[in-house]
């Protein structure tokens, strides 16, 4: 019997489809080139050439942040991307609305600060240990403590659903911030903890790698992000990831199909928290100084915005979202000069500041609204693609 293979002719308008159809070596090469470019990004000679000519203003639209240190902005993008990746596990996969995600960042940051600062009260007042610990040792502790706080928060609250969970998690983040602000016995309130330790390493001339220059921090966080992406992908394409999505889609049906829902929700919380804590410890390793002012509610909302902007449930989306929520406002800060935009206008004797620097959050907010109206699924939504072509072929093979 001659079986006529009917090929579905599909227009490959989608970039992702085209990329997926490339042979594997080509895909790996493309990814490798992209990663190398990412590592080169904070190099001045490289980023200064990113941009394109425009027929107005100064004639050239730069892509880099002319108003602030590019490497610094990139590092900030980096730890926000990590946060977005963590929240994406909780919100995107398992569908748990966590409004206090930044609380785990705070736990991670404070853990590192308390253990690595010579002025930590653990050393100066309580004599828990003699000298500050190295940064590297404190990172796993920070992750573990953030994870523990995730479990402790999740244990009672994950029995709640939807809005109720959102309120409780919101409360958690606020409790951490207010406790940090008001109590004096260890976290030192608003005065904070100075001289927080940095990651280890020196150049051949003996100078520390991780000092004032942002580029090494960016490289570090970029490396961490790549590792985290691999680990999250492993989880997403497994029984665990399926259980999360099933819980998100229909929790009752999932439970009746044998999914231990509470256990996997708790895992989602713990993993999200661990990534949040990791992000906090990386930030603290750079920041030098940790106090409660960093952990305001806006940050939690910004991370949430990053996940939704990028597309919940998608790793690419979380990365894009985390990048944009930090990068766009910073980029807008200086881009007005390019167009010869006036910094202020005078209406009836009143000076109104219209510089993009001042208006950057207004512009950013407006952009967010536009995106959410026209693309509610996010910029880079998760589209559950065919598992493996092999399986499909096996399945449609003629029976007789």
């Amino acid at each position, binding site marked *: 019997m001659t079986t006529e293979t009917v090929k579905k002719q599909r227009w490959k308008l989608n970039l992702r489809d085209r990329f997926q159809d490339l042979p594997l070596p080509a895909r790996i090469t493309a990814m490798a080139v992209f990663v190398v470019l990412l590592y080169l990004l904070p190099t001045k000679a490289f980023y200064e050439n990113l941009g394109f000519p425009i027929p107005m203003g100064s004639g050239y639209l730069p892509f880099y942040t002319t108003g602030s240190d590019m490497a610094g902005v990139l590092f900030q993008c980096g730890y926000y991307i990590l946060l977005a990746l963590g929240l994406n596990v909780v919100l995107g996969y398992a569908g748990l609305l966590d409004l206090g995600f930044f609380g785990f960042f705070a736990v991670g940051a404070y853990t590192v600060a308390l253990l690595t600062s010579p002025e930590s009260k653990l050393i100066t007042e309580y004599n828990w240990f003699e000298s500050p610990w190295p940064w590297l040792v404190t990172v796993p502790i920070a992750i573990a403590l953030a994870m523990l706080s995730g479990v402790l928060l999740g244990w009672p609250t994950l029995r709640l659903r939807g809005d109720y969970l959102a309120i409780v998690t919101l409360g958690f983040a606020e409790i951490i911030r207010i406790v940090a602000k008001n109590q004096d016995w260890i976290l030192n309130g608003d005065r904070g903890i100075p001289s927080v330790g940095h990651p280890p390493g020196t150049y051949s001339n003996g100078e520390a790698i991780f000092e004032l220059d942002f580029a090494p921090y960016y490289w570090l966080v970029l490396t961490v992000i790549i590792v985290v992406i691999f*680990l999250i992908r*492993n*989880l997403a394409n*497994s*029984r*665990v*990831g*399926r*259980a999360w*999505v*099933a819980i998100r*889609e*229909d929790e*009752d*049906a*999932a*439970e*009746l*199909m*044998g*999914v*231990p*829902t509470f*256990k996997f929700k708790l*895992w989602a919380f713990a*993993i999200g928290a661990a990534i949040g804590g990791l992000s906090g410890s990386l930030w603290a390793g750079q920041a030098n100084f940790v106090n409660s002012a960093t952990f305001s509610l806006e940050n939690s909302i910004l991370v949430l915005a990053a996940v939704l902007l990028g597309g919940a449930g998608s790793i690419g989306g979380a990365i894009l979202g985390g990048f944009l929520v930090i990068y766009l406002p910073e980029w807008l800060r200086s881009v007005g000069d390019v167009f010869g935009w006036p910094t202020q206008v005078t209406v009836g004797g009143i000076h109104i500041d219209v510089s993009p620097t001042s208006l950057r959050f207004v512009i950013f907010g407006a952009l967010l609204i536009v995106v959410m109206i026209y693309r509610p699924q996010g910029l880079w939504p998760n589209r*559950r693609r*065919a*598992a493996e072509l092999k*399986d*499909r072929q*096996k*399945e*449609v093979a003629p029976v007789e």
Partner: protein
Amino acid sequence: MSERKPLLEVDNVTLRFGGVVALNQVDFTLYEGEILGLIGPNGAGKTTCFNAMTGVYLPTEGQIRFKGEQVSGKKRNKITKMGMARTFQNIRLFPEMTALENVLVGADAHNTTSVPTALLRLPKHWREERQSKARALELLNFVGITGRSDDLARNLSYGDQRRLEIARALATNPALLCLDEPAAGFNPAEKVALLELIKKIRDSGVTVLLIEHDMRLVMGVTDRIVVLEFGRKIAEGTPEEVRDNPKVVAAYLGVPDAA
């Protein structure tokens, strides 16, 4: 008939919601290898009975035993693991997952891969993935939706969604499959095909409990029938016995006013 082994015993179960008595001392036994129909007019308590069995509701009084073990009060996912699987009256698939993934969730019921194993891709992960995937594809084939495995569940036709739900339930490897109005919204040809599928499921060694409105379907496929009305069992027996039972006729057609 030879010695029959009871699989599910519903023992004088009463379920009250406030003042409403949804189930009133319902009592029946399901034997291994049979197809039992649970019928009754709308609101008779059929789905409530299902929900009590699968752990959604806790009976106010009475006991439900599955394979001789008490079911009530157990966690729902544990009950599924014991070997009781169900479908839903209103389809409740995971709409954003593919057909294959839906079935895999069911197959996962007996897998033990958790976060550390999946994170590090240990051999157990690969072994369970491979086995589950093979089983899931086999089941999709069994219920007759071969070739749709990569389609999102919400993009399947209504009939295929019903079939997918059955495949997902079967993936949990049940001893008892509870079908809640599987033929709702089907045309006669689809009903005939479903009837064949139910028989095929029974022949593969799974006991079936069937809630159904369509009398012809119930008569055609069941070995025994339990009839509920207003939360009470009003009849039990073979399809013929039940069909001729005046109480059942009254329940379905109404009683003429006493002259």
